[in-house]
């Protein structure tokens, strides 16, 4: 990103609730005008981090800076930060207009100025006719827009959004993604966006932080997270993944990963990316769409491929692609996705085929404690 300038710095922030550690030594920078996603499973501490940014929770230790100034002790009503609540939290006794005007009235702006800005905001969210309606009579999507307008109209430095799309039905959710993105680039405010939906994070965010149990597992652009995951957790959380765990070996300057008796070729660049060594525990991650499938006899043994003979055990047609689940004689399962016509099903369940991937398509992630993750849980379910 050009001209990235730090807006928020979260420094070594920890927050406990009893024995739960909701934020565990979190350090993170968010840039001006950036669309930043906090991504992670339920209970990993996303909301807690957002609430600390808004000032509703105080960190047990660590600091939060905005524009280089320490925000930690600043009360919520003094922060140039606004939040859009998961439940929208619209004031039920005020109409849409008054809801949006509420924050501006607190600033003591002249009435004409307030009116102008509220009308602009209503225009921006495309609901100029609903000014007099009470929140109780609005649809979910309309409430969501009003909540957004109410927060944006204050022109904060940062807008915090807690799962803003979670309550909408799927079609509306996909529409709103684009709309939020458009709005964000129009107003130029930094958005910090909480979601547990990786697709949402990947499609909307400039950068995202993947969280687990109050810790940040990786921060990066969606592409970095997908193509260069820092660890197995991120690799499996972002997108589908075939995982082969084992120990690294270097034989005649070629890097290999040994699982049981089988050796898989790995990319030297990937080994160096993580600074791994001979004997390190690691896993190869291959995205299903990076795998190939071919008839059993067609692929010659080549240095830049890993190929295995396997039997097709499940085929699913997705319209634009075919998904295959195949299993080797040793019981390894792979999930293979083939785009469009290429996947025209010359294969049937039970056929013996060749599956594999180019060595450079195999992502390597370091591992410390290793559980047998092949096949990755849930892959068969995701086929449906």
């Amino acid at each position, binding site marked *: 990103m050009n001209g990235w300038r730090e807006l928020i710095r979260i420094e070594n922030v920890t927050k406990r609730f009893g024995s739960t550690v909701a934020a565990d030594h979190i350090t993170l920078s968010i840039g001006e005008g950036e669309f930043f996603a906090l991504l992670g499973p339920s209970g990993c501490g996303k909301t807690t981090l957002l609430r600390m940014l*808004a*000032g*509703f929770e105080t960190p047990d230790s660590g600091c939060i800076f905005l524009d280089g100034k320490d925000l930690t002790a600043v*009360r*919520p*009503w003094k922060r140039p*930060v*606004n*939040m859009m*609540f998961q*439940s929208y*939290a*619209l*004031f*039920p*006794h005020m109409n849409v207009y008054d809801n949006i005007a*509420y*924050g501006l009235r*607190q*600033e003591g702006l002249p009435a004409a100025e307030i009116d102008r800005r509220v009308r602009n905001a209503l225009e921006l969210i495309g609901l100029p006719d609903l000014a007099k309606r*009470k929140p*109780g*009579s609005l649809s979910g999507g309309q409430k969501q827009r009003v909540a957004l307008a*109410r*927060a944006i109209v*204050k022109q904060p430095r940062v807008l915090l959004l807690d799962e803003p799309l979670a309550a909408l039905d799927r079609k509306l959710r996909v529409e709103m993604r684009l709309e939020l993105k458009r709005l964000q680039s129009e107003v130029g405010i930094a958005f910090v966006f909480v979601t547990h939906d990786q697709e949402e994070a990947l499609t909307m965010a400039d950068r995202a932080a993947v969280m687990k149990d109050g810790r940040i597992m990786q921060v990066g652009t969606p592409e970095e997270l997908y193509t260069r995951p820092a660890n197995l957790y991120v690799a499996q959380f972002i997108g589908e993944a075939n995982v082969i765990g084992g120990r690294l070996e270097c034989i005649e300057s070629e890097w290999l990963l040994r699982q049981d008796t089988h050796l898989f070729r790995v990319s030297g660049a990937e080994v160096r990316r993580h600074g791994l060594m001979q004997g390190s525990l690691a896993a190869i991650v291959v995205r299903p769409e990076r795998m190939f499938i071919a008839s059993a006899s067609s692929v010659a043994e080549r240095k830049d491929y890993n190929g295995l003979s396997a039997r097709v055990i499940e085929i699913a047609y997705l319209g634009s692609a075919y998904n295959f689940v195949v299993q080797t004689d040793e019981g390894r399962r792979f999930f293979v996705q083939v785009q469009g016509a290429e996947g025209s099903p010359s294969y049937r369940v039970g056929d013996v085929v060749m599956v594999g991937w180019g060595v450079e398509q195999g992502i390597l992630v370091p591992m410390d404690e290793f559980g047998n993750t092949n096949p990755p849980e849930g892959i068969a379910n995701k086929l449906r």
Partner: protein
Amino acid sequence: MVSPILLLGPALTWLVIFLVFPLALIFVYSFLQRSPFGQIVFQPSLDNYLRLFNPTVLRVFLNSLRIAFIVTLLALLLGYPTAYFISSQPSRWKNTLLVLVILPFWTSYLIRTYAWIVLLNREGVLSRFLLGLGLIREPISFLYNDTAIVIGLLYGYLPFMVLPLYSSIERLSPELREASFDLGAPPLRTFWHITLPLTLRGIVTGAIFVFVPSLGNFFVPELLGGGQRFMIGNMINNQFLQARNWPYGSAMAFGVMAIVLALLFFQAWVTRRTEQV
């Protein structure tokens, strides 16, 4: 198949016998006359109602309304923070605190009012306490004035204020308050613009629960007002038991009921106003 209406049978019968019937009787009485010997004379007229507007009766009505109003106001001022405090506690404390609020109901109100006599009389705890502090030179009785009545009523009816307030505060999502903070309103403004309007229904309900029985109460003014201070309840009581003027007492009772009904309509109106929430 038993019709569901039949399930209402016992309650309806009870209501008709013990509420509708006596009310109807009193309503009829209120238009009749009293013979010199206290009997009821069937001579329909509006006299009893017109006599409600004589200055002595009006003064008692107004004073009763004033006392009931003060009691309600004080109950609100004491009850709101109490209810707010309880609802802000961790859930395991809430029930304990609520039980403490209704604990006094386990003893008869009458007996508890006697206890106040012990506390407030010349030799009472309060008097001795102030003596001990040197704030007063000789023992004072705090009894037999409006203040004593207000204290007695406030004490008795405060839980009726706390409970509806508690339930309306409890229903309020904490996120609404946070959203208000977030939009730049400090706690006091947030209270004024968000919390208060959204708990208005609880306030009105609590106020009626306190105002109505305070207005009609007769034994607290009897005991703590020592018969020197009169409220409507005493006056009605007297008409029935001492003056033996049932028709006039009935008219007074309906006067009170008119006030109460007006209040209930007001409550219904507030509820409807805030219903579109």
